[in-house]
């Protein structure tokens, strides 16, 4: 039987506010344990929450950016359950009236487009962090745990998608798109390494053509887009095998193990959850003026979709390039800064960014806005190609060098003597030498073997240490043979 996967994502994002959700403690990441706490975020007796206006605004901006309805009336509820990373043993969250509902995100896949519904966006507070001591740092097998409440109370936005996602690729594209939107909005840095963006996935399978959903598994510990995609792929394979062999799927939470490439049941004891949501009596409702919301809408910055359209229209880029360039805000910003400095075709700039530059960034796992190569570097390098000072092949070496040292291309070219040899006489002499030194290849060429010509060009390039003008070498070699 053919199965179709049904995937929904819950994306938690820490909002980029200065202070916490319900108190004025700093939200700075990476500080010493329990240095950013106060009676409120430690849940000390008698302390009371007061919501952060900016966090509310950020959620509404996000809702507007993904076409949600904004609730004109909203309130906070308490979600009651005991856990040591939660100071009050309830989380202030939202329940039946979240700030935003019914939105959607359009995805441009490689060869089709699709739309993923967003059920709701709500605002809540983050929990503290547990450090498990003993048992190799895993909760199971640990001797005891330490609790750091620096993160407790950091504003947390949860974006819940409809189960509209059908493939791991779509899941990854959707999550990346959400990130690009949030970064464009400036509401979060969405740093998955630091946990400011966390993705949980619900996945079930159903026979193709059937309406009702199968039994789902919830996947946790998806700490990168790559693990999101791979974790889901693994889970599809696991569930498919189970269904094909007639096994029942158990509704459970599963842990993705990046090193083992597998998911496994989270070893938590099964207790009945009953969160006993009720409106938080320490907080009062929020009512929004529609005009204020329209004001926020008017102030929205350019979003990835609009940017992509603009790149295609203004720069004549193909959809493929435009899609990739807007995937992160930083990539788009880099491209635009480069194009502004460059007088040639934007497509050439796009090629360099999406090709060689991305290759090095990925290899070294560096973000484009954090690397040594700035737009000015790239533009100067392309200018050197355009005026014939260097070849494309040399340029590739220059990128590598710029990437390591941050030096400007002209400086590298001078330092290493990398300028292109374009002198007719100089090249002619080298071509003569190549013909003289390689009689066998010359013979093969005359026997009609095209490959031999490529070999001879390569020999000429070798003699010029890669600096020979390839067009000129081609031309002279053909003439002389």
């Amino acid at each position: 039987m053919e199965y179709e996967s049904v995937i929904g994502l819950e994306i938690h994002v820490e909002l980029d506010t200065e202070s916490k959700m319900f108190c004025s403690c700093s939200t700075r990441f990476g500080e010493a344990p329990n240095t950013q706490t106060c009676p409120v975020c430690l849940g000390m007796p008698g302390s009371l929450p007061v919501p952060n206006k900016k966090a509310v605004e950020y959620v509404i901006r996000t809702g507007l950016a993904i076409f949600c309805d904004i609730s004109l009336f909203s309130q906070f509820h308490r979600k009651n359950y005991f856990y040591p990373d939660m100071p009050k043993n309830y989380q202030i969250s939202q329940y039946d009236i979240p700030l935003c509902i019914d939105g959607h995100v359009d995805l441009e896949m490689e060869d089709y487009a699709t739309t993923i519904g967003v059920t709701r966006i709500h605002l809540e507070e983050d929990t503290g962090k547990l450090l498990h001591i003993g048992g190799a740092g895993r909760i199971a097998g640990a001797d005891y745990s330490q609790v750091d409440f620096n993160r407790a109370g950091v504003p947390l936005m949860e974006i819940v998608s409809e189960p509209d996602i059908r493939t791991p690729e779509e899941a990854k594209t959707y999550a990346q798109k959400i990130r690009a939107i949030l970064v464009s909005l400036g509401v979060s840095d969405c740093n998955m390494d630091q946990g400011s963006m966390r993705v949980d996935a619900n996945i079930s399978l159903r026979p193709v053509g059937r309406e009702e959903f199968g039994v789902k598994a919830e996947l946790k510990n998806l700490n990168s887009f790559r693990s999101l995609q791979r974790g889901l792929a693994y889970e599809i394979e696991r569930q498919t095998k189970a269904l094909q062999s007639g096994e029942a799927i158990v509704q459970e939470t599963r842990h993705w193990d990046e090193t083992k490439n597998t998911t496994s049941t989270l070893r938590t004891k099964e207790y009945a959850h009953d969160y006993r949501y009720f409106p938080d009596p320490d907080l009062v409702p929020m009512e929004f003026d529609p005009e204020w919301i329209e004001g926020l809408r008017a102030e929205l910055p350019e979003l990835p979709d609009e940017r992509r359209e603009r790149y295609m229209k203004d720069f004549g880029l193909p959809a493929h390039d435009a899609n990739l360039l807007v995937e992160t805000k930083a990539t788009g910003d880099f491209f635009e800064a480069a194009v502004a400095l460059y007088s040639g075709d934007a497509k050439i700039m796009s090629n360099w960014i999406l090709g060689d530059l991305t290759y090095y960034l990925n290899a070294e796992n560096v973000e484009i806005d954090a690397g040594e190569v700035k737009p000015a570097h790239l533009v100067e390098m392309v200018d050197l190609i355009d005026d014939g000072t260097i070849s494309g092949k040399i340029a590739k070496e220059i990128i590598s060098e710029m990437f390591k040292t941050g030096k400007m291309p002209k400086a590298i070219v001078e330092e290493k003597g990398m300028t292109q040899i374009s002198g007719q006489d100089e090249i002619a002499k080298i071509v003569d030498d190549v013909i003289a030194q390689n009689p066998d290849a010359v013979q093969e060429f005359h026997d009609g073997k095209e490959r031999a010509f490529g070999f001879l060009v390569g020999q000429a390039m070798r003699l010029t240490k890669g600096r020979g003008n390839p067009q000129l070498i081609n031309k002279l070699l053909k003439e002389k043979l």
Partner: protein
Amino acid sequence: MAISEKDVKHVAWLARLALSDTEVERFAKQLDVILEHAGKIAELDTKDVQPTAHAIPLKNVLREDKVGRCLAPEVALANAPHQEDQAFVVPRIV
């Protein structure tokens, strides 16, 4: 019966209260009397009545996003029953 001993055990679990069997029995009886009394309001027709969470109808009480002073960690941890490495310590979770 408004509440059974089984219900009492369940809510005691949700509220993380260890109860002995005799306590379960005693609390079940007491809670039943109270719930019998309190449960009478279920009979009232409140179809068109809005719930009241607060007697004083305040709304939109929000604070500006400004950072204030935090507690020194030794103050934050001053009442901790067990601490280590500037962190609160809890027994093994699972």
